[in-house]
């Protein structure tokens, strides 16, 4: 199996190179044979990578610890499910997995474009294969998953590894962590599709905005997975890391946030290019930047350039990443520069008070935020290079910038849909604005009287009311038009709003999810925590809750031993549940692990941690009261659902729409 996987990887090397060259030459000289050989190379790459991945999976399942990667990330007693997912637990495996996903996207793109964009496809194929070549190169030279364990003369592995495996990092033994990497990677890798199409269109000077339309769904798809991946990561941090929060501005988290910010900007600004033929250069830059940030994000996570709790240690893959990124930046931006004439705008901005201009500010702010995050993340490296002294910037820096930016974006989320394209007249704006603004002020006043004094939280809650109102009004007004024009019932009118214009109304659902997310974020202004050592019978109070330790237990499983407290939680004297926070010690990896318990309600979470066994033999219980956290997860789900709605193909002509407008529009 080791040989088979290895051989598949080695064979991949010439295949990607050959395919890239054939595709490019085929496209350039318009030779069908070469183009088809290039496309076959992509399919063969996919098959070879699948073979490679399967070999590694079999090695894991057969507990073949002569393979270094398997020995380091699995052990005999590891549950089978985690043996499968250990595939992406480490650097070598996850790079292989990345490459496999890339080739998967590749064949999906080939298939969906078998009769379309034929002029672009050779170049798209070439770019995909070059990307695959780069990752193959890294897998072979710097991070080979099929490396045998090095033995000394006595047959002892170097460095020492137990004969039945070192085990999977216990932090990774959690369902959210199992799906988080593939989901995030699907997002990261997915942006390669718009990237490849953009470069291909620039190279061939393809007419129209065809490439944008061709890739809009792919962009959305990738964005959806990236969002899901980030949220799953946050969820994992919350339930697994045991520090009571879900976001710490850790470099690894920032790595996934940055392409999300530019990707979100891109999703908005492509609409402008589509509708008005503007911002072409801007979009090209955003597409390129997003993909390169995805690669950069993988680099940050995998190379350990910025020290971080879950970044992997320094390793030689860094050089390869830097090389690829540099090449990508020079080539892409060089191409954009060379094709600046081709990218010239068809129109100009007419008014500050228009949908276009609100999108412009949305983009500006997203980009500024991304840059601020990038700057903060890389500051230790930059200051080291410039001043010879590593200086890190902590969460205060990130929050200081991103909280106001987030609030501004939240405001735009509500404000922009009220604006019309090109220009908006004041009377119509006033009409749309009145209700949301009134409700926002009312909500703000009520909250202030209820003694909510945290400034940003107050603004955030009020804005959330504003945005939620504008979104509901959009649905209400849209539904009313359909009712008036077509006599549809309310449910039917609303369903048809979605079907007729899934992108617009799905987008509103995404926005609504964002509102819920922001409400959840603002809740963190009111977090409380407390820790105490409690013996059986001991009690502790926090924010209206009382928790009482009933008993303490100890025990063991083949994989780990544990200490556990049985805690009864009461709110205002009434019991609300029994919880068992636990502390484990995993044998194979010699690592402790905290298993938290969370009492979650719409109002707040009570988050229980078995911090340690105290001096008096009791359990040191750390408890957090985190308001509104549930809103974050619900908001995340709503956001993803909204994104899925956007992916639904637009229904062209269902029930007859008023004849007049149709015939007028169709045949002038």
């Amino acid at each position, binding site marked *: 199996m080791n040989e088979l996987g290895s051989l598949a990887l080695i064979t991949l090397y010439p295949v990607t190179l050959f395919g890239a060259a054939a595709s490019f030459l085929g496209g350039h000289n318009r030779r069908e044979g070469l183009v088809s050989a290039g496309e076959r190379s992509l399919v063969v790459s996919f098959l070879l990578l699948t073979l490679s991945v399967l070999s590694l999976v079999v090695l894991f399942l057969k507990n073949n610890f002569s393979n270094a990667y398997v020995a380091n990330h699995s052990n005999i007693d590891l549950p089978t499910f985690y043996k499968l997912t250990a595939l992406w637990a480490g650097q070598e495996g996850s790079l292989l997995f990345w490459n496999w996903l890339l080739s998967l996207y590749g064949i999906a793109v080939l298939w969906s474009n078998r009769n379309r964009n034929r002029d672009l496809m050779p170049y798209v194929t070439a770019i995909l294969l070059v990307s695959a070549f780069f990752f193959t190169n890294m897998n072979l030279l710097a991070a080979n998953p099929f490396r045998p364990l090095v033995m000394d003369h006595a047959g002892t592995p170097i460095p020492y590894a137990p004969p039945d495996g070192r085990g999977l990092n216990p932090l990774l033994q959690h369902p959210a962590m199992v799906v988080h990497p593939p989901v995030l990677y699907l997002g990261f890798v997915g942006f390669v599709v718009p990237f490849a199409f953009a470069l291909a269109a620039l190279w061939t000077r393809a007419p129209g905005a065809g490439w944008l339309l061709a890739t809009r769904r792919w962009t959305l798809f990738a964005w959806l997975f990236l969002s899901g991946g980030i949220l799953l990561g946050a969820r994992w941090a919350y339930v697994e890391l045991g520090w009571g929060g879900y976001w710490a501005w850790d470099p690894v988290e920032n790595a996934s946030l940055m392409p999300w910010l530019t990707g979100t900007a891109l999703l908005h600004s492509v609409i402008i290019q589509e509708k008005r033929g503007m911002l072409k250069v801007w979009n090209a830059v955003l597409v390129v930047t997003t993909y390169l940030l995805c690669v950069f994000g993988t680099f940050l996570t995998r190379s350990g350039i910025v020290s971080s709790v879950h970044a992997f240690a320094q390793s030689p893959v860094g050089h390869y990443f830097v090389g690829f990124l540099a090449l990508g930046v020079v080539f892409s931006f060089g191409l954009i520069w060379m094709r600046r004439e081709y990218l010239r705008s068809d129109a100009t901005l007419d008014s500050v008070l228009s949908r276009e201009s609100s999108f412009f500010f949305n983009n500006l702010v997203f980009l500024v935020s991304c840059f601020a995050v990038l700057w903060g993340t890389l500051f230790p490296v930059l200051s080291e290079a410039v001043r010879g002294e590593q*200086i890190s910037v902590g969460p205060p820096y990130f929050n200081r910038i991103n909280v106001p930016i987030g609030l501004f974006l939240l405001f735009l989320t509500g404000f922009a849909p009220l604006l019309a394209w090109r220009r908006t007249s004041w009377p119509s704006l006033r009409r749309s604005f009145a209700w949301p603004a009134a409700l926002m002020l009312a909500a703000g006043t009520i909250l202030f009287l209820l003694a909510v004094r945290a400034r940003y939280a107050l603004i955030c809650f009020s804005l959330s009311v504003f945005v939620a109102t504008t979104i509901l009004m959009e649905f209400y007004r849209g539904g009313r038009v359909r009712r008036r024009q077509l006599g549809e019932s309310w449910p039917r009118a609303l369903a048809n709003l979605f079907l007729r214009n899934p992108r617009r109304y799905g987008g509103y659902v995404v926005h609504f999810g964002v509102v819920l997310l922001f409400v959840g974020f603002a809740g963190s202004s009111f977090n409380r925590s407390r820790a105490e050592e409690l013996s059986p019978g001991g009690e502790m109070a926090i924010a209206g809750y009382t928790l009482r330790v009933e008993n303490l237990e100890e025990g063991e499983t083949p994989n780990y031993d544990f200490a556990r407290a049985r805690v009864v939680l009461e709110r205002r004297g009434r019991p609300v549940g029994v919880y068992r926070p636990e502390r484990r010690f995993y044998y194979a990896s010699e690592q402790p692990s905290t298993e938290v318990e969370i009492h979650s309600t719409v109002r707040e979470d009570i988050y229980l941690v078995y911090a340690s066994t105290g001096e008096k033999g009791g359990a040191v219980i750390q408890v957090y009261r985190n308001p509104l956290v549930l809103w974050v997860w619900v908001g995340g789900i709503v956001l993803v659902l909204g994104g899925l709605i956007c992916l639904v193909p637009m229904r062209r002509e269902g029930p007859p729409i008023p004849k007049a407008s149709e015939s007028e529009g169709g045949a002038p």
Partner: protein
Amino acid sequence: MRPMRGRFLIGTGIVLAAVLWLAFTGFDEGKAYYRTVEELREEGEASAGKRLKVGGNVEAGSIVWKEDGLHFRLTQNEASLPVRYLGEAPVPDTFKDGSQAVVEGTVASDGTLEAVKIQAKCASKYEAEYGGESAGAGDSRS
């Protein structure tokens, strides 16, 4: 079109200026200087009062829970630094004897680092493995 472009430039300018201002103030509040245990020993008094991030290995057997917090020592080669952890969050799972830790805090008058944050990773696992590997790769190339 000219006046229009002017207005957009002004808007852009306002956004950028606001963010720069936020960045500077947030930066001062959040910055911390990286030091190794050895560097800190050499500097002595100079680093007092600064917010520091100190990296080193957790000395085996030095972790003690006391009334006023968690005590342990960070070591690097010969140098060693006493640390008292005062932070709210429980220590991370990866924090144990021999693990690599980065602690963030300020040096008190008695030379103890009063930490508010601990980050740790298991030395045994990733470090040794990739250290060994990169050395191996270097050999094969040279």
